[in-house]
């Protein structure tokens, strides 16, 4: 976001002291909890109710997903490092960690793509059974959120490379971080429900 806009946003005092955009992100996250909650309920309702296979226990590869989960978790760490760097105006580190976060997110997504294509190869498509439908919808929605995050982070990286991102934009990076951490937490829940509770 441009410096001028960021600066003018900071000029307006707020009743709570919290910046408007940060509050907006928190409220949005609240709404997203209900969204993922409804998708998770759908998944749970249909657990064990597929009439034909393949079934989860046949397909879910916990070791593999554990690795991709770890990658996503690490991306949250790099996000924290990115924010800290930007806040102290160390834009070299800022660029590095922003890029790393985006790349780790991309690695996670590649893992998802690999897993999805493997499942399809094994006979589980979107319309094969209820497991396929609810699994792909739930993890696909999450993946779409990660994808949006990756685009967002890449945009910030590009801005930083162009010298347009400084500590004056720390709030923007923080809000990006909020979104990114939320997406990560959702994944923890999904990982638990889909993979660990199979």
């Amino acid at each position: 976001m441009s410096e001028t806009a960021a600066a003018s946003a900071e000029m307006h005092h707020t009743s709570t002291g919290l910046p408007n955009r940060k509050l907006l992100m928190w409220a949005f996250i609240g709404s997203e909890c209900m969204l993922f909650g409804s998708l998770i309920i759908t998944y749970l309702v249909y657990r064990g109710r597929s009439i034909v296979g393949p079934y989860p226990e046949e397909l879910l590869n916990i070791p593999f997903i554990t690795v991709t989960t770890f990658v996503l978790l690490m991306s949250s760490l790099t996000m924290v490092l990115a924010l800290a760097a930007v806040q102290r105006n160390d834009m070299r580190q800022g660029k590095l960690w922003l890029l790393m976060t985006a790349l780790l997110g991309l690695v996670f997504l590649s893992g998802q793509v690999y897993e999805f294509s493997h499942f399809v190869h094994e006979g589980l498509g979107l319309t094969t059974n209820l497991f396929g439908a609810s699994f792909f919808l739930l993890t696909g929605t999450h993946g779409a959120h990660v994808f949006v995050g990756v685009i967002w982070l890449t945009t910030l990286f590009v801005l930083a490379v162009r010298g347009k991102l400084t500590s004056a934009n720390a709030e923007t990076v923080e809000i990006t971080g909020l979104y990114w951490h939320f997406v990560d937490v959702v994944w923890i829940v999904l990982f638990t429900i889909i993979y660990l509770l199979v």
Partner: protein
Amino acid sequence: MSVTEASHDTAGMTAVHEGTYSGGLWSWVTTVDHKRIGIMYAVFAFFFFLVGGLEALLIRIQLGSPESTLIDPDLYNQLFTMHGTTMVFLAVMPLSAAFFNFMVPLQIGARDVAFPRLNAFSLWVFVFGAFFLNSSFLFGGAPDAGWFGYANLTSTQYSPGVRIDFWVLGLQILGVSSIAAALNFIVTIINLRAPGMSLMRMPLFTWMTFVTSFLLILAFPAITVGLVLLMFDRTFGTAFFNPAAGGDVLLWQHLFWIFGHPEVYILLLPGLGIISEVIPTFSRKPLFGYPFVVYSGILIAFLGFGVWAHHMFAVGLGPIGNTVFSATTMLIAIPTGVKIFNWIATMWGGSLRLKTPLYFAVGFIAMFIIGGLSGVMHSSAAADLQQTDSYFVVAHIHYVLFGGVIFALFSGIYYWFPKITGKMLSERIGKAHFWLMLIAFNLTFFPQHYLGMHGMPRRTFTYQEGLGFEAMNLMSTIGSLVLGFSILIFLWNVLHSLRKGESAGPDPWGGATLEWAIASPPPHYNFRVEPAVHSRDPLWSEGGLDVDVNDPAAPEPHMPSPSLWPCILAFGLVVVAIGAVAKTLPVVLAGAGVVVVAIYGWAFQPLER
């Protein structure tokens, strides 16, 4: 302490500010001013109110006689579906949004909402979404499976064609609009209040807007997911709601009503907020039991998430489920009653100026009591086995939504019209509107209680002779025609008053809240000088406001610049929807492209230029 006429410094507000609404079409399309956005919401909402009303009149004319062949069942099913969908999503919600938009920043002493461009975006998404949904009439027929669209009637097997696709996509678009607006108002109300305005000093209307906004962001995701599941079933052939493949049609009902019940409180609470402002103003007394009215609003919202299956008492939830939901539904009657008693107590001992806003407010309370009582009858799961899906429910919902919400919204219109336009609505015509509407409304809907108990199911395009339904249906039909006429009287009042109405001045009613401290209509920056408050009724406090909020000596505040990006982004979303309905991938991608470009354009455009 007695009420003295609030003394305002009128030095800065001699004439109607011509700057507020001037400018051509372009200035309206690119505006990010909450007041203009509010007016546009109101105009479109009222247009769709008339559309939904026309649909209702056609329904009533068809039902005026038994086995009428005037309207065939195919058209009838589209009419009742669109009547419900239009009134809920395209009339009442946007009309409430119009009030949120115009009044909330004024009431909290702010110059605009927290995110002016997001605000414009919400408006345009609503407008494009509304026309998208209604365009279905021209492209194969409007949705025809009811506003609640139960699976598996909505599957491609039983609803081939694109009608339901229009419904699914249209509602998702409207959901985006509502969630964006709600997020905006949450941040606005939390963060942009004038110094000294703690939460418990906020005007009640702002409070109810606040609570409604939380309901919106937490309830809409449930229907979004339901609609996505249905969309996947229809587009890709998944089996979410296909019993033959293990799917459960009841999942749809649960998801829909987990949204749908909070939705009715989304419809209601803003109206309750309006009444809570109108009654004190016209009683010349502060609201009785302000904290209790606030807490009961919060409690209603909270409990509203726990009653949804009372719409499902006949599906066979079992005795435990039915007992629990009966209990929670009865519970919600308590905070609702508390509000009613506090309003009556506000009037008690007051000095009631019998002006049109108060007429509608009292009419609201009277009708809402009836609607609430029939609601209590529904809350008993066993008794409801006779009432549900019959005209008894139709009577109940119209008593709370028309006799309730619509009357409250008219009260708000008569109350705030002077502030918005600078003109007074005619009292004479207003009172005629009120009486005609009250009588016609009761004539239309009271007989429907009987029709329901005597066995007439709802959503039926006709009924046979010999069941005893003729007389009451005829009565209801006549009532509906008169009701339609009463709306025309209101329209006449608006047009007549805009041309020849008395000039309003800043505070025609002697109101207590901040919006009455500035000119009518307000200057585009609302308050020249930011107010500070020390009480709930700042304009009624001793000496009025501390500062002159209209001081012409103060520098003119710089406001956000207009922007076209919100409109473009909204347009992009609708193009995606059009591509989806037409099952044309290139159009979907084109729309997505517009969306991406618009997001970047918006993000990189400074708010103030």
